[in-house]
Structures are given as structure tokens and as C-alpha cells.
């Protein structure tokens, strides 16, 4: 079949192909005859280029349309498959029903979209984000401080139940992994007598998204490190709290990993005071970590033990799917 001259469609300028997702609003019907092009006037740099119509055989247009829609459809299918792969099982089961979910999951696993691969991919994203965070980190950067009048109410976000005050009578801080090779024990009075109290008003940011400005007081971790230096090969502090409880009230010790760089940050405190008064039980009496360069979940309450280690110690929330870096 030979192409007749009238079997042609006129389209607008090819420059539109740079932004293929934008709809082209056009309203006028096709003119019978092309108007005579006026002499082009010099255009300002920011002025829109005119949309010159071009002529293309109808068959070629149809072929191109078919190709583009097939590609678009393939992209759509890939998006749906990707969404199926990445979404949590509970959400999917709720969307399509348990039986259909299991069938589709088997099908997806057969083409490599398995649960194990998903966990690998999502953990990879988390690690990548941590690497970006570490690249951004500078140890000289100070945390923004506020005035005391900026203080906002601070939530008690104790994981599980808040312990009763009974533990305070026997509380002590045990520190090991020291250069001296000894294990030291401190009562809160020992610490307050020996070290200067520093105060700061900083923002505590929770991984859940809320934040609070609070007025803290305590001894600088860096001063404590200078007085009781860790072993030379130590890079980490494993800080634990034996007093934490789970929701049912059973013991559920909490532990965080803190790199010594964070511990040496001048605004990192072994905090003893909140709002000018000794820490209440709800906020980790008598001693908690305040590391404002880290998310709230690293700011362990009622710490009872510090162990300096050469390798990275376990971290409570990292074992439950969160980042272990948690830097702000």
C-alpha cells in the first residue's frame, strides 16, 4: 500500500520529547492549510520556543505510539512487581487475601523476587543511607543549642514498662575494658564529686519522628574517658542498662553501641540532671547517656555498665531492624 499524501498527521515540535510525561494541551482543530510562517523575531532567552508542527507519516506515528505504550506498560508491570516485592507481607495479605497472597508470593519468588532478596535489598538501602550519613559526619560540628525558655515537654518513651525506683538504692556503674585492665565501680556521688557538671539545652530527636528540647546537666563523657582511659585498641563503648523491663514487666536489658568518636564529642554527656533537677526515674535516673548527635534510641537510660571494645558491640534496636548508626 502506498502512502497517500493526506495520510499524514501533523505533530507538534520534537522538543516536547524531553518531557514526555507532560500533557500537551491543544484545543484548536487542525487547520486546512498551513499559515505562512512570519519572519522569526529574536526571542528572549527565557521565552518559550514556538511549537513548530512537523509532518510524519501516519504509519510511523502508529508504530512509535505502539512502541512507547508497550514500554510504558512494561514499566507499569515492573512497578507493580516491585511494589509486590517490597511491601510487607501483612499489608499484601490484607490487600488480596491470604490465599492469593501466598500463591503470588510463590510466583514472585520463582523470578527472584523472594523474601530473602527483599531483606537484602532493604538492608542494603539502610547501609547505603548509613554510609551517606558517615560521609556527612564531621566530629567538629556542634549540635544546635537552645535557650532554657525553648524547652518543650519530654515524653517518657521507655521501651516497655518504666521501672520502679527500687533499683536506685543498689545502683552503680561498672566500667571495664580500661587501659588499666581493672574494672571500676562508681556510685552517682563519686561521679558528681569528681567531675564538673556541664549544662546544655539541646533537641532530642526520636526515630518515631517527634522531638523535644530539654535542659540537661551532667558530666562530659570526654572528661570521664580522660580520667579512665579505655584500652588502646578500643573503638567502641558497649553501654548497657540492666533495669529495663518489657511491656509485661519482665527484665529486658537494653544495650547500645556507641563509637568512641561520639563519646568524645564535647556535647555528649553522662547526664545526671534534667531541667535543673536530678533525673527522674522516667528519664533514666540516676545516669543516662545524652548523645545529641544520635537519635534518641541511642540515649540509653539508667545505664549500669560500660564496656570498651575493639569490635562493634550489639545494639538492641539494630537487632530489631533499625539502623545501627542512627547519627543525626
Amino acid at each position, binding site marked *: 500500500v502506498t502512502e497517500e499524501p493526506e495520510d499524514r498527521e501533523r505533530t507538534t515540535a520534537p522538543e516536547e520529547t524531553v518531557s*514526555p510525561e507532560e500533557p500537551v494541551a491543544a484545543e*484548536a482543530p487542525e487547520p486546512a492549510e498551513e499559515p505562512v510562517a512570519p519572519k522569526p523575531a529574536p526571542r528572549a532567552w527565557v521565552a518559550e520556543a514556538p511549537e513548530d508542527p512537523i509532518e510524519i507519516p501516519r504509519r510511523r506515528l502508529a508504530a512509535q505510539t505502539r512502541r512507547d505504550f508497550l514500554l510504558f506498560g512494561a514499566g507499569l508491570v515492573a512497578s507493580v512487581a516491585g511494589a509486590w516485592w517490597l511491601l510487607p507481607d501483612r499489608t499484601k495479605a490484607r490487600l488480596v487475601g491470604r490465599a492469593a497472597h501466598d500463591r503470588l508470593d510463590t510466583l514472585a519468588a520463582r523470578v527472584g523476587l523472594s523474601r530473602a532478596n527483599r531483606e537484602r535489598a*532493604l538492608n542494603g538501602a539502610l547501609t547505603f543511607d548509613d554510609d551517606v550519613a558517615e560521609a556527612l559526619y564531621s566530629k567538629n560540628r556542634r549540635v544546635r543549642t537552645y535557650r532554657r525558655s525553648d524547652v518543650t515537654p519530654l515524653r517518657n518513651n521507655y521501651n516497655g514498662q518504666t521501672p520502679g525506683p527500687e533499683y536506685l538504692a543498689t545502683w552503680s556503674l561498672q566500667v571495664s575494658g580500661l587501659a588499666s585492665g581493672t574494672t571500676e565501680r562508681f556510685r552517682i556521688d563519686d561521679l558528681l564529686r569528681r567531675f564538673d557538671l556541664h549544662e546544655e539545652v539541646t533537641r532530642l530527636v526520636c526515630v518515631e519522628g517527634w522531638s523535644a528540647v530539654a535542659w540537661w546537666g551532667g558530666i562530659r563523657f570526654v572528661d570521664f574517658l580522660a580520667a579512665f582511659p579505655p584500652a588502646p585498641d578500643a573503638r567502641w563503648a558497649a553501654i548497657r542498662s540492666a533495669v529495663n523491663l518489657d511491656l509485661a514487666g519482665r527484665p529486658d536489658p537494653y544495650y547500645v553501641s556507641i563509637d568512641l568518636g561520639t563519646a568524645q564529642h564535647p556535647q555528649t554527656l553522662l547526664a545526671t540532671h534534667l531541667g535543673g533537677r536530678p533525673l527522674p526515674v522516667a528519664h533514666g535516673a540516676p545516669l543516662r547517656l545524652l548523645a545529641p548527635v544520635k537519635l534518641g534510641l541511642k540515649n540509653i537510660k539508667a545505664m549500669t555498665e560500660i564496656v570498651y571494645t575493639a569490635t562493634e558491640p550489639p545494639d538492641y534496636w539494630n537487632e530489631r531492624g533499625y539502623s545501627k548508626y542512627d547519627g543525626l
Partner: protein
Amino acid sequence: MVPLLLGLIASGLSIYWAAPVFLHPRDAVTGSRDYLVDVGRAISNATRYTGDPRYWVYDHFGLGPRYLAGALRLHWALAYPFMLVGVLYVLGLALGGGWRALLPRRSDAGDALRMMRYYAGVIPMAVLRRPWPHPPMRFKYNALQRAAYFGMGVCGVLVVLSGWAMHKPVQLGWLERMFVNYDVARIVHFGCMLAFAGFIVPHVVLAIADGWDTVRSMVVGWSARVRKDAP
């Protein structure tokens, strides 16, 4: 872009709601302190919902309750491709000169009013079978389209910047201060999400309502309609 955004919105809402946001004193009967749980119960009762009635809102506007760790991973996994696509979009606009069509111009205020009047009249005039001509087009986009597309670009920049301001408020302290403080950055981030959601749905509906040529132009990048005043 759209699938990424949908994933970001769903995981973002799961993060936002990880700690209940709209609270009231604990109710003695239901034990609830959360308005969204109350709303969920009410809707579940009205619709005989078979899932957990407490979590109706969380299940329908997010990935479900108690999913913070997973939602965070998903949010980062989608946010980086989102930023990459955004950079590609800006590069395409810059290299192809398409940004010129998106720039607001002085005539936009009047043109926008004319377009609103036109849209308001389309359905009534179709019912009355009266002619209702489209205002003349002098540029590729009408003033309302231009405002929407330009606004989406601004939102895209704001959503990424406010996201980083919240994600690293210490290392990117200057960015956090640009948004005044952490809480304002959160509000901006949330507002941009609402703007995206408010754009996508009418955008697609209007394109489909406009006809095959417009839907095709969204996929293939050209239109077979040529306007009368084209040079």
C-alpha cells in the same frame, strides 16, 4: 516517579504514625488515647470491616501499624531513586530547554482566572448544550497547568530539602535552620506530600477527560493536534 511517590507516601505515613499523633485522654471504655483509633473503630463498625478495627486508618493510609523499622528501610530505599529521578528530570528540562514552558509569567494571573471560569462552566454548559469555547492558548501550557507543574517542581525541591533537614539536623544544621527548626521541616515535608497527592489524582483524571490525544501525549511526548495560531 509516581510509583516511587506512592511508596514514599505509604511508608512516610507509617513513620509519621509510628507514635500516635492525635491524642486525647484515655477513654475508660475502649482504653484508647488515639483519635485515629476511634475513627478506625467507627468506620469498621459502619462497614463491617474484617480486619483489626483499631487499625483501620493505619491499614488504609499507610503500611499498617507497628511497622516503623520496615517503613524506614522502605523510605530510604525509595527516597534515593526518587532524588535520582528528580535530578534526571531537572537535567532533561535544562538540556532540552523545556524549563522555559514552565516559567510563570506576568499574564498568568488573568489567564488563570479565565481558565478557572472555563473549567467551572464546562459541565453546566455541556448539560445546557451551550457552546463554551476554551480560552485562547498562547503558550504550550495554560496558566493553571503552568502553576501546577511549576509548583510541583518547587514541592519536589522542598520535600527533598526538608527530608534531609529532618534526617540529619546536626550535620546539615544550616539546612535545619533554613526551615526554622526540626518541627517546621516536618510540617513542610508533610505539606509537600499533601500537595503531591492533591496533584496526581486530578492530573490523571483531567488528562483522561481531555481525550485520547492528551493521554497519548503523556506517554509518547507529542500531540497530533496543531493549534490554529501555530506559526
